[in-house]
């Protein structure tokens, strides 16, 4: 059986590692290439490199950084932030990224998902969605709304509907990031994660809010996630990957332990 995946997210700004707290404050916490290698050796199952400034400032994506990271880690590795075209996606694939994440640009033009899936395959096309809890309404029956531009712009799109559309358009995986939980270290948005995971036939990755090993256990057991994204919980050396995996394994979650 497949193991549940522990995925580390490196938010990158100006080529440096940063971790956003509710998408507003960011602080520099080191060299992304070195950090990536360290996590790889420590047994992380997958890595995401996310350019947190790219879509806002329409900055060109960091091909060079991607190549450097790809030459240092030998596990699946995805890239997101500012991907606006098939050409962007193809270049990142060529630079060594296994998968690419689309977010804002896919909301603005949903054909981008199918175009990228056709060019590099569904298995390499990830739809990353930033979600905010709102009052349930006719437009937003699930009570969860898609927001774009790094969480700054509401869209009036229902998150559950968007997840299903993403799958139909050819996304091979969904990253569900809760804006409310992000940076709080109080746990993943389990209700949101489970609602989406139970409604689609593609893997769902829980994102935002991990502060304790218990939160990862909840993402898998209650959130029904296939993978869980972590950032601050490992970036500040509170826990390392092995400790998290040992904990999950002791709670009966199948994770990759031999590496």
């Amino acid at each position, binding site marked *: *059986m*497949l193991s549940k995946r522990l995925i580390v997210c490196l938010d990158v700004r100006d080529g440096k590692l940063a971790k956003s707290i509710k998408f507003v404050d960011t602080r520099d916490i080191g060299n992304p290439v070195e950090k990536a290698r360290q996590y790889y050796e420590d047994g992380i199952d997958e890595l995401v490199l996310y350019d947190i400034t790219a879509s806002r400032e329409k900055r060109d994506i960091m091909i060079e950084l991607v190549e450097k990271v790809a030459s240092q880690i030998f596990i699946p590795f995805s890239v997101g932030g500012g991907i606006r075209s098939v050409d962007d996606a193809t270049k990142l694939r060529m630079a060594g990224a296994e998968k690419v994440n689309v977010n804002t640009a896919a909301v603005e033009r949903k054909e981008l998902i199918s175009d990228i899936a056709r060019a590099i395959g569904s298995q390499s096309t990830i739809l990353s969605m930033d979600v905010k809890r709102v009052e349930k309404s006719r437009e937003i029956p699930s009570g969860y709304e898609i927001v774009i531009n790094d969480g700054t712009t509401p869209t009036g799109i229902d998150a559950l509907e968007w997840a299903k559309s993403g799958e139909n358009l050819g996304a091979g995986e969904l990253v569900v990031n809760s804006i409310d939980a992000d940076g709080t270290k109080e746990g993943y948005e389990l209700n949101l994660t489970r609602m989406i995971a139970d409604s689609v036939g593609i893997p769902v990755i829980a994102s935002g809010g991990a502060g304790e090993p218990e939160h990862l256990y909840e993402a898998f057991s209650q959130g029904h996630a296939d993978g869980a994204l972590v950032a601050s919980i490992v970036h500040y050396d509170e826990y390392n990957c092995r400790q998290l995996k040992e904990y999950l394994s002791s709670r009966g979650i199948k994770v990759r332990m*031999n590496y």
Partner: protein
Amino acid sequence: MQFACSEIGVHSVATGDAAKIVSAERIIFPGVGAAPSAMEYMRKNGLDAALRQAFQNGIPILGICLGAQIILDSSEEGDEVCLGLVTGKTLRFRLQDRQLKIPHMGWNEVKVVRSHPLLESIREGDEFYFVHSFYPQPAEESNIYAVTNYGDDFCSALGYRNLFATQFHPEKSGRLGLQLLERFASWDGVIPGKLKHSGGR
């Protein structure tokens, strides 16, 4: 793939040149995409003949993912006739359990069922990275070297003479994957204890 070769200190060249393939010391054949388009590309560029020649010349060959599928006679993906270096077919996953998602994507255990020089360092519980919707099914059981469970057991590594192939991606499978590549880099193409004419064609 080339980054992984560099990491283990092996010089590699990415090429679509038939002459270079036939004269290589060893060949890694990492397929990408779908069987029909891959076969079309290979036929158009004479790479099918080159690979067949290399195989007959005894050059060690490592097929990966699609490269483990199109070495068989045919594939259910587009009902395509393939290279036929090893007898068998590539089949589509038909999963009863609706909880299991396709593609089979992620880390899964590889169970060695027959010893092979490239698999010697694999221990019980070792996991490798997969991403695929089809899997190779060699006709001869003696060509199956490892299996993986996803609903049922499927063949995740096969071999015949100087050809070895994995459905998983050793280049994306961390230290254990790199170990397999290192073993390939020093493999002479012989499977000790195998009768010369057993299995395959």
